[in-house]
């Protein structure tokens, strides 16, 4: 961290390990939250009415088969991306999951 930084800048220029996903509220989002809450004991879910914000330390891994099972139908990457309104962290689409992790240390 640069020494020339003033206090205000310093106050936000800090290491954060939080990653988030914002889901368009609805039946799909509720099923995703149910699956994610079961899999991540420290998950924080905030309800903003039109969207749900999921926050976790370091990573959020959305396993599509588990979400599909909760919904009782096939649930694939495009289905997930249909309700993912936004996120913070680094996204990666894999064959059976979508993950959001903190930006890889370089």
């Amino acid at each position: 961290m640069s020494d020339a930084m003033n206090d205000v800048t310093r106050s936000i220029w800090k290491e954060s390990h939080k990653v988030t996903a914002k889901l368009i509220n609805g039946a799909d989002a509720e099923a995703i939250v149910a699956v994610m809450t079961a899999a991540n004991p420290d998950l924080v879910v905030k309800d903003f009415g039109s969207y749900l914000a999921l926050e976790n330390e370091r990573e959020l891994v959305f396993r599509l088969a588990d979400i599909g099972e909760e919904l009782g139908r096939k649930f694939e990457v495009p289905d997930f991306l249909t309700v993912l309104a936004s996120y913070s962290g680094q996204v990666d689409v894999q064959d059976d999951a979508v993950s959001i992790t903190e930006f890889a240390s370089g």
Partner: protein
Amino acid sequence: MALPITKAYDRVKAIDWNPSYISTDEKYLEQSRFFVKDLKPLDPFKTFIREYFKMEQEKENRHYSVLEASSRLHQGHAEARWMEGMKFGLSNFAFVEYAAGRQMGRMARSVAPVELRQGYMMQMIDEMRHAQLEMNNLRHNMRTWHDPAGYDIALKGAGNNVGSGMFRAMMEDCTTCDPIETAISLQVFLETAYSNVFFVGLSSAAVAQGDHTMASTFLTIQSDEARHMANGWATLVTVLQDDRNVPLVQEVLDKWSWRAHVSFGLGNALFQDYFTKNRTESAKEASLRWVYDEFYGGFYQKLERYGIRPPPRLDEQMAEMDDLSHAAAVYIFGAWPFFYHRADPMTTADMEWFEKKYPGWYSRYGWFWEAYNKCKDPTDKTIILGQLGGLPNFCEVCQRPLIFPTPAAHSGRSFMHGGKAHIVCSPGCQDIYVKDPQHYQTDKGFYDLYHGKELSEVVDHMGYVRDDGETLIGQPELDGARMWTRADLRCCDFVVKRPPPPPFVDEPVVAAAPGGIR
């Protein structure tokens, strides 16, 4: 899909070829000043065109069924302050999205790696979808809102009102800069830092105002932005693989940090604080969470390992959040005849809320609302614009009026460059101007067109008059005893005058950036 995504993705990528019938120079019409040869790009979303369209169709189906149900069930009971404010607010966006689509077409052509190009091309189609979604929402509101005047001219209005120049200038700046700068300005600053506050943050405000169709428009748009944010990150970390790009990236980050704050950041703040009646969170709270905590803290800070420093005016930007929406409101409410919505002035309840969220608010802005509330009735023949001494100057870089950080002590300045006097809103915009002056050569501005003209003539020329040819579209309150007309404006005896320039400064601005821009 038969193959797993990762395998199929590699196979599709291998289909890319170099055409033999056109030279590289002919193919890539313009060159970036960034070093992009031989870099290994990322494409985190690995989206295929077939899946892409399937997904977008599903989004469209979900969204348009909301619009359809809303028309059918006459869900027209949203807050009037919001519905009127969105005549101006939403009118700006179709242009912005369309410009973003043009930018992606240009980037797909001029930034070579296939992984990035694929993402840009889908984004180009996304942006066309967004422009259409917003135009459809304007049309929906025109059909369902009890006063359609303003919604009917929204796209034209966005082209000539005295506020939208901020958004037009912002988009034209990212359309005409270096193609890699386009990625950083649009995808990193506008889409990662700021569009979240608007499309996601403000969607819950829209719901609180009873406007579910707008919330649906916002969220279906932002679900595409998720990919755009990844395009931005992918482009950024790709170019940062080459050390020679670090100073060039820094320069762009320094510029756009300020540039986005004074345009999109300002719009977000105004809409959140002054177009909402049922309060959720303040613009300052929303910005601190989305822009300063999540973006600067959670995203930008991660670039430090590449040798990137924080932008030089971060503290100034954050400090401005105490005034940004309020100063913007003094302007947009003060200049109401130059807009096409009914303004809903702040009530005692609003003022109490502001005082709670922005301690000291009343001592800084109470005077304006006291004065405003005395000038609403046309029979009094007093217009708030006259009380304020007319419209201010506009910044030649960002097109903000010169009333920031506060109308009482704004940072506007004049300076000489290339043998001519120029006006900017702030030292931040002066830095931007001096580094790239030809980018900000102005065409005819508002005062070139209207200096010396009487107010009712100007409003008529701008097209902000209702079908009777006499009643104004813009009104200073939601439901006055009677509406203002052109005749009422004439009684106020107001002539548009170019204000004197702000004080000249001749201190040197920041030294030329490392890497040398253009």
